[in-house]
């Protein structure tokens, strides 16, 4: 059950000029979010529509944290929110990451894609192997936390300022070539990355789940605005997703 309520800004911390960690205290009871689910967050009257953000984690006080990157108008307005102000919060929404079947879980995060995968990494029974690619070392976040909950963390950056220089999908591909066990991949990041992850995984007979993005209006399945093309027709990212089986999605 999702709810619609006011939430108070407890903190809106800058982790980088473009990345913020927003801590929200819901002013009425809310359902426990599960990794992979998201919230619609807004301030009226501007921006007009709410924006979707993944559940990132709970703060020490049990408040909801959102980790976001400033992209355009909506995220700029959210980035300017002061402590003590209020937002409209709708959620948790969408389907969470499904539990893995086997033991070997591979996580692939591109950029801000880490936001939705972070709580999933922490919640897994068996420590996963994490692939995390970003532009540069400055845009790598929470790596120590992740290491704690991971068997191993592979990092790539576009500029080589941390980990290997190059694409995270190339690093993943190399890794999978050397792997001879069944595995499940969970990926979140830019569409191009997800497409690539999907192809690589299929080639190695693995299963991949991807968390995809699309512009949203309602967030609750009512407007049919957020569809992506899948083998079973257009599916709503906010309702059937945001997590889809990669081989279902038509890129």
């Amino acid at each position, binding site marked *: *059950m*999702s*709810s*619609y309520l006011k939430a108070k800004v407890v903190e809106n911390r800058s982790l980088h000029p473009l990345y913020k960690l927003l801590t929200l205290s819901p002013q009425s009871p809310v359902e426990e979010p599960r990794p992979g689910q998201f919230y619609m967050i*807004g301030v*009226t*009257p501007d*921006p*007009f*529509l*709410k924006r979707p953000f993944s559940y990132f984690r709970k703060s020490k006080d049990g408040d909801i944290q959102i980790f976001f990157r400033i992209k355009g*108008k*909506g995220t700029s307005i959210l980035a300017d929110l002061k402590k003590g102000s209020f937002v*409209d919060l*709708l959620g948790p929404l969408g389907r969470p990451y499904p539990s893995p079947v086997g033991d070997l879980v591979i996580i692939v995060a591109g950029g801000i894609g880490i936001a939705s995968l972070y709580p999933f990494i922490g919640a897994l029974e068996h420590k996963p192997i994490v692939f995390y690619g970003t532009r540069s070392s400055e845009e790598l976040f929470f790596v120590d936390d992740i290491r704690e909950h991971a068997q191993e963390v592979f990092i790539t950056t576009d500029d080589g300022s941390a980990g290997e220089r190059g694409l995270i999908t190339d690093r993943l591909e190399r890794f999978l070539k050397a792997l001879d066990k069944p595995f499940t991949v969970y990926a979140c990041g830019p569409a191009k990355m997800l497409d690539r992850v999907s192809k690589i995984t299929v080639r190695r007979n693995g299963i991949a789940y991807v968390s995809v993005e*699309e*512009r*949203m*209006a*309602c*967030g*609750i*399945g*009512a*407007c*049919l*605005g*957020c*569809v*992506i*093309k899948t083998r079973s*027709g*257009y599916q709503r990212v906010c309702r059937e997703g945001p997590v889809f089986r990669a081989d279902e999605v038509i890129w």
Partner: protein
Amino acid sequence: MVDLSVNIGPLRLKNPVMTASGTFGYGEEYANFIDLNRLGAIVVKGLSLKPKEGNPPPRIIETPSGMLNSIGLQNIGVERFVKEKLPFLRQFDTAVIVNFFGDSIDEYRETAIALSDVEGIHALEMNISCPNKEAGWSIFGTDPSTTYKVVDSVRKVTGLPLIVKLSPNVTDISLMARVAEEAGADAISLINTITGMVVDIRTRRPMLANITGGLSGPAIRPVAVRMVWEASRAVKIPVIGMGGIMDYEDAIEFILVGATAVAVGTANFINPAVTVDIISGITRYLEENNISSIKEIIGGIICGEP
């Protein structure tokens, strides 16, 4: 206790607040957020005889005080609606109005027939803002004679209260309202979305895969209020007003210019409980102004020298 009930032709609604088609899914999507029993009516997403896939994404984009959509009338078709969605809606003490469309006069008629003897459907709303495959895909509702023909052919096959939903993309809304009335509509509803487009100057591509879409939300409210005012002076049948209603004040504004009922669309995306907030607000407004029935203020605008 103030009396909120209104009549849309033969259909009695317990209050004048309904949902606008396409913004409220099949009702169930909002059951988490509001008690559906409180609504005057639920108008469901537009149906066609057969399921329809709709347009490719991206389908929506925010605009100043509004949004564009090009859903492309995606829907599950009459059969699945009746089987999968209607049983849920029958539980509620709220009128269910089925919005529908076709791409030919025949399809309109067949769809109306398919919907007409189904338990739990209380009225039909025909969306005529869609392309006519028999006339080079021009829009039914922008040509008076086509509008007359399609409404007339539906009128002849359904005994349900028939609401005709007008397109605002016309020169003369009064004329279209009169045509719908003459063709036998029990009520008219307006406005549907106004056609618009947005281009991404970075990629030089339209923001919607379909290039154009329909503008809704408060941006269009002044246009909607004007059209409802014009239309309601042109016809005797009840008018359902919509277009950018965000709160009870906006709803009252539509009622003052002549709407017997109102529909709330895009505002549901901003606040999924907005419809019940509006119903409470209207009640308060009537109480505070010592008005015993909403009917007293329908068309109650005062023009001329103070």
